């Protein structure tokens, strides 16, 4: 029971309970608060896994950005607080049964994944430093470790080559620009007269 294990169980329990609370809360603002805790728990798990840059990025982008957006959306579309939209029992039972079934299938699949644990002396190590991530994203592949060319398992191991992620990086930046313009356009204040329901 190393420190990593203690921290894992605390963080995983916190994340899982918050995810349950997101699903089963009736009031939408509370649901957003539990989602915030789930995202913070996920960031903690990223830190525990050694992906420090990702943990900080998750907190900055998700908690500091997306959740604020969601809460603003909730507050701008709020109806009367007493009338929270309730789902009836039939739909809940259908959703829960599908969920439990899916979880059972996933567990069966997961047991077929070969178990991997750390060697006893390296229970906690950092993943690649952020400078390698930056080098990969900027197209400087000589600074990053070699990767498999495809993910297909084969009998003879494929030669390892160096890859970089400059193209997805550029695509994502253009994508974000498009999303910015599109969201601003979609959510603009419309000045046409009231339409009949």
């Amino acid at each position: 029971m190393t420190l990593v294990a203690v921290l894992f169980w605390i963080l995983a329990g916190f994340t899982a309970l918050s995810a349950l609370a997101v699903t089963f809360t009736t009031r939408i603002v509370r649901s957003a608060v539990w989602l915030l805790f789930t995202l913070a728990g996920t960031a903690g798990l990223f830190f525990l896994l050694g992906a420090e840059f990702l943990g900080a990025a998750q907190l900055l982008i998700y908690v500091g950005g997306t959740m604020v957006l969601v809460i603003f959306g909730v507050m701008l579309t709020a109806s009367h607080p007493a009338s929270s939209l309730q789902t009836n029992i039939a739909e809940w039972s259908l959703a829960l049964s599908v969920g439990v079934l899916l979880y059972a299938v996933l567990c069966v699949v997961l047991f077929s994944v070969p178990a991997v644990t750390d060697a006893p002396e390296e229970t906690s190590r950092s993943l690649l430093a952020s400078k390698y991530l930056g080098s990969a994203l900027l197209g400087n592949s000589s600074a990053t470790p070699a990767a498999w060319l495809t993910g297909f398992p084969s009998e003879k191991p494929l030669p390892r080559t160096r890859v970089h992620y400059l193209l997805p990086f550029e695509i994502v930046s253009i994508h974000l620009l498009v999303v910015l313009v599109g969201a601003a356009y979609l959510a603009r204040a419309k000045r046409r007269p009231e339409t009949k329901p």
Partner: protein
Amino acid sequence: MNGELQAFFEQNGYSPQAAAVASGLALALLSAVMLLGLLFVNSIFFVWLERKVAGRIQDRLGPTRVGGKFGWLQTIADGIKLLFKEDLIPQKADGLLFRLAPYLTFAGVYAAFIALPFAQGWVAYGSASGALSIGVLFVLAMLSTEVFGILLAGYGSGSKWALFGGMREAAQMVSYEVPLALSVLVPVIATGSMDLGHIAREQQGWFWEWFLFRDPFTFLAFWVYFICAIASCKRAPFDLAEAESELVAGFHTEYSGIRWLFFFLAEYSAMFAVSGLAVILFFGGWHLGLPFWTFFATGPELSQVLAWPHPVLSLGNVVNALVFLLKCYLLVFVQMWIRWTLPRLRIDQVMMTCLKYLLPIACFLLLGISLWEVFLRSLVGPYCKATLATLVVGSLTITLIQIWRSPASQPPTLEVAVPWNPTRPPSIPQPKA
């Protein structure tokens, strides 16, 4: 220290694994308690300082009664008063969110101190060689989680003034995060590392090694950072959220007692955190700027004294930490000074400043520092440093001399035609009949 603590636990009957867990938890608890203590003491000091600064700027004295001539214990008295206030929760408030919001706000700011080094090796998470490797990003991320607490406070209060204040405040803080992050990237590009300990170590030596004087882009980046930091701490002139004349008290209208105290703890801790980040990024961190460890040490004696008794817990580091705290307090004082001098901006002016002025300037600075690092640094680096340092220090000196010599700083002399006799009241002019 982890190894020594683990050995201590092992001697008391814990197995090696349990000792490792216990020592890790004990160290984390120690750091947490020390940071919490520092934040509480800082906030007590800052509340007193704010009232004194406010008083002096407004040509009055500030607290002078509680605890002697300077009112040292005023904050303690305020804290005791707040402890005894009625715990009031409005009827329409969302109970859970109303109770959660102050602690959420404070937790976000408190966690930012995990990555902030106070001296070489004096950091909550890190070693003697460096702090967290992505320290800058971590501090920014934690300071940005404060927004959520403000939103919940505004919504959970169940009152429209609080909701408006909370939403305005959240919009302001989230908008100002963008030029804040861009201006913080400028010294990161200059160093090539996000490790705060490494950035501070790069600025050792004389004070012209500080990043403030390094090149014009980091110089301007400091001013952009400082303005965005004041906005993200919701201090005047950006304090629409707590605008007393407009929104009663903004998002913390319905809060009283200890919950209100936590909001102000969060605010002063955020001021301290952004000042600490500014000091490390631009003002040389914990370095004094006058390297008299090496300058006056004729032999290794002084450096040995200063490295006693332990590589990390040494006298030199104590002095360094004090220098760091002093610089942080100076920046916090400047923030308070600005608050009580400048009038408040309207919300559209606030947004315009961010989106039309600071954001393009920050983008230009980012471009500029990249080009500077590639092309110009080897050519004009030292000359720029010398020029900027001379300009800044020179203008500061001239300003101080002018203030000292100005007529306003001399005490006014009172000329009386008729000296007032205390036993006879001065004659009151009779009204004409």
